[in-house]
């Protein structure tokens, strides 16, 4: 069909407009990562020398090689993977329930006129409360099993995700709203087509905070009292003055935290490819 002759302003459609990376950028990143690894090795080396020479008590910082040995030892101990499973399950199930729950609550608060304004002071009040301090009561109510832990994880992750989601759903873009209203869209359509996508960057920020909180929640719950889980193993190892084992367990927890963080970042990159504000590296 006819295109105007004065069509100067249309670039050839095949030119990608995504900026090509500078040739030096990849090299730079590689060098920086190398430096990071070098720094880690240096710290481990200092710890090793300090500990072996007796300069640092190995009750405080054991030699990294001892921690490594403890780690390998644990991995072969019978029942260890059951404890890992117990902690991971509490963490993941609590996190997922909190994420889904806080999303549904946020959606209701936003879609029902006035409800958010009424409930916000209460939500903020609960958010400021150190929820982890309720852990002993929850354990008292629900016992030392899987349920208590899961509920604690859910509780500590629910509020940061909820508050971020609400903040995201409050983002308004006049023109986008007018566009949808000009088509006669329902509030559910407005929610699906504009508000939810606009809120996603905030929701993911909440999920990343929530992932960290989930791990803390699970371990603290196990500290307070639990039949199994990595937190319970830490308590046992400490009572036996097995410091390398304590450090080895901390390493396991760190790996779990990194994996959870990586999963949320990956999902974020997939869903928020269009957003300039996306975090996750």
């Amino acid at each position: 069909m006819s295109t105007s002759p004065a069509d100067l302003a249309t670039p050839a459609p095949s030119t990608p407009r995504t900026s090509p990376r500078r040739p030096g950028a990849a090299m730079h990143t590689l060098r920086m990562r190398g430096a990071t690894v070098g720094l880690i090795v240096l710290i481990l080396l200092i710890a090793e020398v300090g500990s072996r020479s007796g300069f640092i008590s190995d009750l405080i910082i054991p030699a990294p090689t001892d921690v490594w040995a403890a780690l390998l030892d644990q991995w072969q101990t019978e029942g260890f993977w059951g404890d890992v499973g117990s902690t991971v399950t509490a963490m993941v199930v609590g996190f997922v329930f909190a994420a889904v729950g806080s999303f549904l609550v946020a959606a209701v608060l936003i879609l029902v006129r006035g409800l958010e304004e009424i409930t916000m002071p209460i939500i903020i009040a609960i958010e400021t409360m150190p929820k982890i301090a309720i852990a002993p009561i929850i354990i008292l109510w629900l016992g030392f099993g899987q349920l208590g832990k899961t509920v604690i994880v859910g509780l500590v992750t629910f509020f940061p995700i909820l508050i971020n989601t609400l903040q995201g759903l409050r983002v308004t873009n006049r023109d986008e709203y007018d566009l949808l209203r000009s088509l006669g869209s329902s509030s559910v359509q407005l929610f699906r087509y504009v508000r939810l996508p606009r809120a996603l960057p905030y929701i993911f920020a909440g999920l990343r905070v929530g992932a960290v909180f989930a791990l803390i929640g699970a371990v603290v719950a196990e500290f307070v009292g639990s039949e199994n889980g990595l937190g319970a193993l830490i308590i046992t190892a400490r009572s036996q003055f097995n410091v390398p084992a304590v450090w080895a367990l901390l390493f396991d927890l760190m790996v779990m935290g990194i994996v959870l963080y990586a999963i949320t970042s990956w999902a974020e990159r997939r869903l928020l490819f269009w957003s300039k504000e996306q975090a996750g590296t």
Partner: protein
Amino acid sequence: MTNASRSVERPMTDAEGSPQDGGPRSMRLRVEDVSKVYSGADGVDSVAAKGVSFDVRDGEFVSLVGPSGCGKTTILKACAGLMPITSGRIDYEGTGRPAKAGTYGMVFQTPTLLPWWTVLENVVLPARVLGLDMARSRRRAAELLELVGLTGVDDRYPGELSGGMQQRASLARALLHEPDMVFMDEPFGALDAITRDTMNDLLQTVQRELRQTVLFVTHSIQEAIWLSDRVLVMSRGPGRVIDDVPIDFARPRGIALSADERFRELELMLKQELYTSLDAPGLDTTSLDATGPDQELERS
């Protein structure tokens, strides 16, 4: 209400009579003595429009020009039913109300494409919201994208397109559901001068094909004359319509028209009307003759 299978090409004889009289130039939109007062959060009211009256007839392209802040956007949104008015009456096709949501198209100053959807998905948004047949609407979207000169970018994301290309897509979207009328609020105001001329030319091409009824807001007098059948001049805020000028240049109108004697006379006349309401002695156009150096005035 719409039939997505109808071809983009609409013959000129396809008269769009209104329910009452079926004439080719019957009343489409009537704005009577409309005023709008925004009550500010701090208790300070601001009057955005005061006694605005005009009308738009079927198939007409009407521009609303005025200095920025005079209430053009307010009036446009009120006509589209997106903004309640304080007093007066807006009557769309004898309904006694503003245009009904879903029956008109809207183009904003910013393209307002949703960045998480491809260009094609953005163009079919009206079909999604209105629950039209999606397969048909996608075909129509592809036709419209071709009409606005955007080919091969269906699967691109808006962020990969230039501002002009995005605005083309937004024009295609406004036309997707075969609206009865199109409202445009300074659609090319954010574009550079060359792209803007291109878009104005494109709009005329589209207009030849589709013969839409258009209410077009702009602060460019040249653009208004070039595109319109009629130009409404608004005074400085709180705005009123102070003149209603028919523009009868033959179509299609090319860029050369802006060098035409009558075009320049019209331009100067409209400027005089606009600028006398602005308190700026340097813009006193009464001392210039029509062929005077008006280039500088324009940039102010």
